[in-house]
């Protein structure tokens, strides 16, 4: 087996995964400021890209835990091979592309875990997977993340409106939340950069360790950090406009006060979870925040059908990415020809989905125009006027 070829393929695929991760997750930070008009769509994605780039350089802690902890080397004699990482990445990328095509925000880390789990199942059988760990690290957090963020965002939105509410009909200054949105969404983007680029760094480092190019337990090399940072920043700048549309306008109509409350809740929840040892997915937190803020503003509606579609996407993430990962692993373990078949297959799938997406392109030019146009055409009923509470 030509180790160098497979290593190069894995690194290329890992960087592409990083890229999809970037454009998949632009929405987490920037969907709400784009929806409220706090930032121009292009400016928003550029800001997010720069912050992701900076964020990637700030920390390598997560990368170390992935390269050191995701697959236990030696403990039960299980060694992950580059072929299996390769297969796992194909599963993760395929799922990321499909959810992007459908405009569904879904967790890139869960797609990565799903793909790797599927590949490991083929490589080592069922005993390679610890069901308890999958439950406590992936499935339960997926339920708790949107719930937590939803409760926090609901409370924050209620507070924001209660404090600025005026009963005398004078201007309430809620426009001012637009300024604040720039900062709160930037914080989310920065936190995302420190977390998500790390995953790819971890995967590449894991690969280099598994072929003996790097000592066990060492951190990512500098060139790995640089390339991962650039890949995620480029992906972010591309902007997953389909997902931004879903998160910014599909779930609920976002107004500045609401957007600020949602972004602050996302930032607070992510920071709390990553510092108090209960890791939650950025995407799931951000989606929960948007729904929570939609419930918290009077007169606003949450479109539960869209929320339901997103939920189904989350449930399918592990099995779908795992299934593709397993399939790719079956082919990849057949030797160098299998790996090449996998690589071509992955290229065909990615290219196909990209071409398919061109049929109804969503970009920064038409991201919100439909909604805006319909808003101009139809006379919109303003929010119900708050009534002064009758005190007896």
């Amino acid at each position: 087996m030509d180790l160098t070829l497979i290593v190069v393929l894995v690194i290329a695929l890992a960087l592409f995964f990083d890229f999809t991760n970037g454009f998949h997750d632009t929405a987490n930070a920037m969907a709400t400021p784009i929806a409220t008009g706090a930032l121009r769509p292009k400016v928003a994605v550029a800001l997010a890209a720069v912050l992701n780039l900076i964020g990637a350089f700030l920390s390598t802690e997560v990368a170390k835990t992935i390269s050191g902890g995701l697959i236990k080397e030696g403990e039960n004699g299980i060694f992950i091979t580059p072929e299996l990482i390769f297969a796992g990445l194909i599963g993760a990328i395929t799922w990321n592309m499909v959810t992007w095509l459908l405009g569904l925000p879904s967790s890139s880390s869960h797609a990565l875990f799903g793909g790797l789990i599927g590949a490991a199942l083929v490589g080592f059988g069922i005993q390679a997977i610890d069901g308890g760990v999958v439950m406590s690290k992936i499935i339960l957090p997926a339920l708790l993340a949107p719930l937590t963020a939803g409760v926090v965002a609901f409370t924050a939105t209620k507070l924001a409106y209660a404090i600025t509410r005026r009963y005398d009909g004078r201007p309430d200054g809620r426009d001012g939340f637009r300024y604040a949105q720039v900062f709160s969404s930037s914080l989310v983007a920065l936190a995302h950069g420190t977390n998500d680029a790390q995953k790819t760094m971890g995967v590449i480092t894991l690969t280099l360790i598994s072929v003996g190019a790097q000592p066990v337990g060492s951190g990512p090399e500098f060139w790995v950090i640089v390339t991962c940072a650039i890949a995620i920043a480029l992906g972010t700048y591309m902007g997953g406009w389909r997902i931004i549309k879903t998160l910014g306008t599909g779930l609920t109509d976002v107004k500045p006060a609401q957007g600020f409350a949602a972004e602050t809740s996302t930032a607070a929840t992510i920071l709390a979870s990553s510092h108090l040892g209960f890791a939650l997915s950025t995407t799931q937190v951000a989606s929960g925040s948007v729904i929570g803020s939609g419930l918290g503003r009077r007169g606003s509606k949450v479109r539960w059908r869209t929320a339901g579609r997103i939920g189904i996407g989350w449930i399918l993430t592990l099995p779908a990415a795992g299934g593709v990962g397993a399939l790719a692993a079956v082919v990849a373990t057949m030797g160098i020809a299998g790996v090449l078949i996998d690589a071509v297959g992955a290229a065909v799938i990615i290219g196909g989905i990209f071409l398919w997406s061109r049929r109804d392109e969503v970009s920064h030019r038409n991201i919100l125009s439909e909604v805006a146009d319909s808003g101009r055409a139809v006379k919109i009923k303003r929010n119900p006027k708050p009534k002064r509470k009758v005190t007896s």
Partner: protein
Amino acid sequence: MIDWIAFVIVLVASLVGASVVVSAYALGLRLLTIGGRTPVVAPAEFTDAITVISPEEAARAAKRAQKAARKNPLTDAQKRLAVIGGYSCFGLSGLAVLYGIYLIVPAFHGG
């Protein structure tokens, strides 16, 4: 299994954190409005999902705010106090953002 105590701590911490930041900023806006300096921020692009406001509407909102400010019953000193209070509230939420950056960058708090 799952670490429920850690989860509850995360829930409470994020609830408190987000509430403090949002309340401080909202209070700041309220005080600015009381002080007669209602901020009117037109969207960068007029695509707001609900209130699709045009530049004309934004100008009208600014005029309304000015009119409301003229009818303000507060004395100048009270207004000044309110505005100062408002900016201190913004400062407070700004500090919270800085604390967030502190938490994000491991170099600042030793991993």
